[in-house]
Structures are given as C-alpha cells and as structure tokens.
C-alpha cells in the first residue's frame, strides 16, 4: 500500500515561540539572553536619555547651512539647490520609467529619497524661510519627473544621456563659469574652496563611484589580457595602489599630479577626485576579477562557438554574469568610498566631516562645557548611516532580483 502523504509536524510560530526556541532554550541560554538584553536596554536608554534631555543641539541646528554647503555664498544658494533639483528630477524620471524586476529597486530608492527630501522640506518650511521655496521646488520636480516619464515612455532612450549631462550641468551650476558681478551672461565663479559640506561629499562620492566603475572593469580585463605589456601594467598598477592607504595617495596626488601635468596645478578638488577614483578603481578591478574567475569557462566557449565577437561576448555574456556575482563586494566598495571621502579634508577640502570638525572648534563652542563634539558626531553618524544603510538595502534587493529564476 502507498504511504499517505503526511503534513509536516506542527511548529509553534509567533514571537513567544521564537524567543523560547532561540533565546531561552535552556538555563544557560536564558541567562546569557537576560544579561545581554539588560546591557543593550541600558545602553540604548542612556543614549536616548542623553540625546533628548542633556544634549545641546543648538550648534548642530545653527550650523546646518555650513554643514550642507559650507561657505557657498548665501545669495547664490539657489545654485547648489539647482543641482539637487536636476538630480531629483532625473531620479523621478528613472523611477517613472522603471518596470518590474530591477526597476522595483530604483522605485524603492526613489521612494526613500522622496521621503528624505520631503522631511527636509518640512523642516525648511517651518525653520528656514530662505530656502523654503527651493525645497518645495525640489519635491515638485521629483514628482513631476516621475509623471512626465510615465506619460512619455520614449524618454527612456534619452535617460542615460540625461544622467551624463546632469553631471556636467550640476558642476556648471556649482562652480559657475564666465560671469562676474556685472556680467550677467554666465554664472559667477565660486571657487571650490568655498563649497563643501554635504554637497561636496555627495558630488565627490557619486563622481568617484561612477568613474571608478568602468576604470576598474578595464583594469580587471587588462589584467587578463594576452598582451604582456597591458597585463603587467595592470597588475603593477593594482598592486601598487593597494599597497598604500588612501591618505598616502591623496597626498601623492596633491604633490605629484602637477609634475605629470607639466607644472599645471589643478584645483585641489580635482587632484583629490583623481586620487580617489584611481584608488577605488584598483579595488574595483580585484572585485571584478573575482567575478570573472567565478564564471564557468563553458560560458565563454558557448559565446565563441556561436560566433559572437569578443566585444559582444564580453558585453552581453561575460560581464553581466561576472558583475552580478560580485554585487555585494562592489556595493561594499561604494559604501567604503562614500565614507572615505571624509579623508579629503587632509588636502584642504571641507566635506561634511571637515566642516563638522571646524564647527566643533569654533570659539563659541568652547564656551559650552565639553564642547559640542558629541552632538555633531551623532548627527554625522546618522547621516552616514542613513545613506550607507540605504545602499546596502539596494544591494540586497538587487541580489535577490537578479538571482530570481536564474541559477
């Protein structure tokens, strides 16, 4: 006789059952759990207690503008805001154009971004009248971009180009070219030593991430090249770069880049950006190489056997698979790059971290007992955590989405 199919044994569900199974399964476990819970609760409660009742947030509050745009001229604040608008607008368009699958990730990131921007706008509405309308415009453009793209799907073709153009336009707004006080054709030049804070952190990390990606791929492929000159150059480059900490390369770029450029001394911001991109590219290359090596050799062979050109098989078969298998490592690198931008302070630039340090050492801060260092650091911690966490959420979503129905 055929055995009837039996239902699996019932397993208790719910929080209590979970706790009994995982935290209090025996006396020893229960003891550790209780001690751990008490310690954690005590720590969190004292922190919250301090944050709400004892901390002095005035300094953070009063210096928000410094930390956002540093000493960017107040009457020109619309210019950094214009860059924000462009980016949010394109973000909205991307979300509007994205379909199922990986598109969901863009939409979810867009929702978060709009939540974040909406929060700032609310704060601005009540507390910062000078930028109130600029922030409202940001929100409106974010929503408008979404619906515009929904209404005109053919924009999808233009989107990559718009994103590329947005970088140049943002830079144009931030830096300004041409005009001066009495010349209205153009935007007054704002030297990069005046801009800083969060806007610099973002501009710097996004540029670094975008540029190190193709460069890293090129280095990884070069490392596998059959031509010894290319191969050994790439190995040499990668190993040299990885052999010293970023801070060394930031100094080196400051001192050496002018030598390579025949005495021309680019702005500090460009030197630092070059250093960060070249640095991150070496790590990117090693990540990509890991992905390339993990790819079964049959994939290349199948592509060859079908007659695909080397370029097509790289672009359509090898890289898409190699990259997806190392997404967590790549996102880890991006998160690191985002945080490492705080090192650019050593070449005289003022990103968020540098501005916060400066604020903490303002003469007025000294009047407050113990300074206001802790408040500023908590503010920064929340800022960095928010975006790093968001990136790692996107990475997990991407993994899940790409893993679906494939292997």
């Amino acid at each position, binding site marked *: 006789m055929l055995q009837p199919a039996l239902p699996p044994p019932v397993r208790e569900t719910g929080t209590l059952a979970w706790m009994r199974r995982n935290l209090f399964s025996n006396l020893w476990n229960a003891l550790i759990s209780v001690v751990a819970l008490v310690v954690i609760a005590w720590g969190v409660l004292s922190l919250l207690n301090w944050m709400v009742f004892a901390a002095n947030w005035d300094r953070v509050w009063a210096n928000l503008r410094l930390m956002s745009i540093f000493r960017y001229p107040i009457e020109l604040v619309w210019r950094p805001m214009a860059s924000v608008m462009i980016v949010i607008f394109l973000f909205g368009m991307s979300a509007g154009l994205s379909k199922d699958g990986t598109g969901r990730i863009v939409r979810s990131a867009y929702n978060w971004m709009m939540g974040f921007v909406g929060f700032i706008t609310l704060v601005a509405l009540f507390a910062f009248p000078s930028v109130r309308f600029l922030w409202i415009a940001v929100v409106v453009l974010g929503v408008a971009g979404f619906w515009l793209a929904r209404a005109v799907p053919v924009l999808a073709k233009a989107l990559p180009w718009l994103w590329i153009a947005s970088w140049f336009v943002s830079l144009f707004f931030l830096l300004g070219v041409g005009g001066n006080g009495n010349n209205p054709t153009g935007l007054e030049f704002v030297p990069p030593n005046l801009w800083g804070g969060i806007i610099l952190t973002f501009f710097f990390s996004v540029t670094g991430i975008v540029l190190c990606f193709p460069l890293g791929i090129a280095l990884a492929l070069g490392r596998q090249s059959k031509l010894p000159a290319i191969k050994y150059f790439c190995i040499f480059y990668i190993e040299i770069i990885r052999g010293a900490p970023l801070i060394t390369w930031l100094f080196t770029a400051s001192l050496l880049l002018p030598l390579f450029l025949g005495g021309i001394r680019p702005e500090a911001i460009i030197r630092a950006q070059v250093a960060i991109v070249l640095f991150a590219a070496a790590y990117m290359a090693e990540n990509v190489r890991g992905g390339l090596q993990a790819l*079964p050799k*049959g*994939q290349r*062979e*199948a*592509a*060859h*056997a*079908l*007659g*695909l*050109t080397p370029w*097509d098989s790289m672009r*359509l*078969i090898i890289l*898409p*698979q190699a990259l*997806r298998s190392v997404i967590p490592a790549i996102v880890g690198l991006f998160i690191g790059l985002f945080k490492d931008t705080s090192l650019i302070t050593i070449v005289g630039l003022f990103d968020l971290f540098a501005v916060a340090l400066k604020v903490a050492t303002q003469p007025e801060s000294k009047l407050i007992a113990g300074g206001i260092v802790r408040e500023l650091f908590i503010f920064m911690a929340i800022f960095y955590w928010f975006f790093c966490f968001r990136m790692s959420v996107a990475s997990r979503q991407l993994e899940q989405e*790409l893993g679906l*129905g*494939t*292997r």
Partner: protein
Amino acid sequence: MDSVVSALAPTGGQTIIDISGLNKWFGDFHVLRNINMSVNKGEVVVVIGPSGSGKSTLIRCVNRLEEHQQGKIVVDDIELTDDVRNIDKIRRETGMVFQQFNLFPHLTVLDNVTLAPIRVRKMKKSEAEQKAMYYLEKVKIPEQASKFPGQLSGGQQQRVAIARALTMEPKVMLFDEPTSALDPEVVGEVLEVMVNLAKEGMTMIVVTHEMGFAREVGDRVVFMDAGQIVEVGTPEHFFVNPQEERTKSFLSKIL
C-alpha cells in the same frame, strides 16, 4: 580492412569537413596524433572512445575552441588559420552542443536562442524571434520560451541548447557528449531530437556513447584511443566484427 579504407575516404557526395595530418599538443602532451578524417554533406559521424582519448579536443579543433599546431582543417572550403575572419566564418557555419549545455543563465530561453542570429547574422529582432520559435517547436519546448534556463530540467536545457545552435542555421552540427550529463529518464527526449535532425539531412559529428543512436542514424563510427583514430567503419561493421583488439575491448566494456 575494406570498410576501414572506404570509410576513411568516403566516395561520392561533397566533402564539407576535411581534416588532414592534424597534430595537437597540450604543452608536452601529444593529445591528437596524425588525425585524417573527412565528412560529407549530410553525413552523421559518431566518435567513440575511452575518456581522455581526445574526442572532445578533436571536435573542438573544428570550430577553433582549441588551436591545432600541425595539419590542415578545412570546413566548407574555408581553411582554419589564424585569420580571424576565417574563424568567424567557420563558427557561423558550425553549431556546437556541449555536455554541460552552457546556456546563458542570465538570459531567457528566447534571448539565448535569438542572441547570435541578431548579433552575428544581423537579423531583425522580430525575424530572429520567429526563427527561434520555429526551432523551439522543433525541439518541442516552445512553451518555455520566456523562462530562464535555471527553471528547466536538464533535458529541456539541452534541447534549448540544440535550438540555440540550429537558429544560426549552421551547415554542420558538433555534439560533445550531449546526453552524458542528463538523468537517464530524459536522455531519450534529447536523442529523439538528434535523430530527427539527422534524418532531415543535417551534417553531424557526434561524440557519444549512445550506441542505439549510432546504429539508428550513424553513417560512420570513428573509434579513438590515445589521440589516434584506431578504427573507422559503419555501425554494423563495429557491432558485428570490429577488427582491432582495442576496439573490441572498449566495446565489450560499454555494450
């Protein structure tokens, strides 16, 4: 010996693959030794032999997945040289099916099948899709077109791989142990597709140990051992009175 000689140099018909004096080394290891073999249009040649005897290497030389060091390989009147244009032409005319399928896991079945026609033959997408569906029907899985390879069984994956090669409309199909990685119960569905293909007149070189297949549609069987062609003949010749000792001992192990 008669059959061996006539089989080595088939008369009548038109030669599509001509291999002569082929030698290949992996480092110091002499893996293919003085191989001479030609295949006529519409012929089905089955290659058998013990593991490591060089069967895969031989058919992989035909589409330049492996480079040979000596000898001459001519496919459809194009000689295989270092000239990339010749290699590309030959790869367009030869389809290959691998033991491990080697489907592209990040593309749907339909995209797997249309990729090469669109990229290599510069076919329009709609035309390629039409053609792809025709061949997917031929291998009896049109309904799986929008799935990913990972969602299919081994037998289904191998049939997709066959459709992928066929959609390029090659003149020759190379099969490298297409059923060896399959569960026994799905071997039949893949062999059936291959038998139909053979009956329609496709030129095929098939490395396999499926003697039923050889008997049913094989025109010639080639037995290889230690990098050499030991014996060539019709399937009947092989199963009724193989000449060489090595052939006999190999056949006694697999039959």
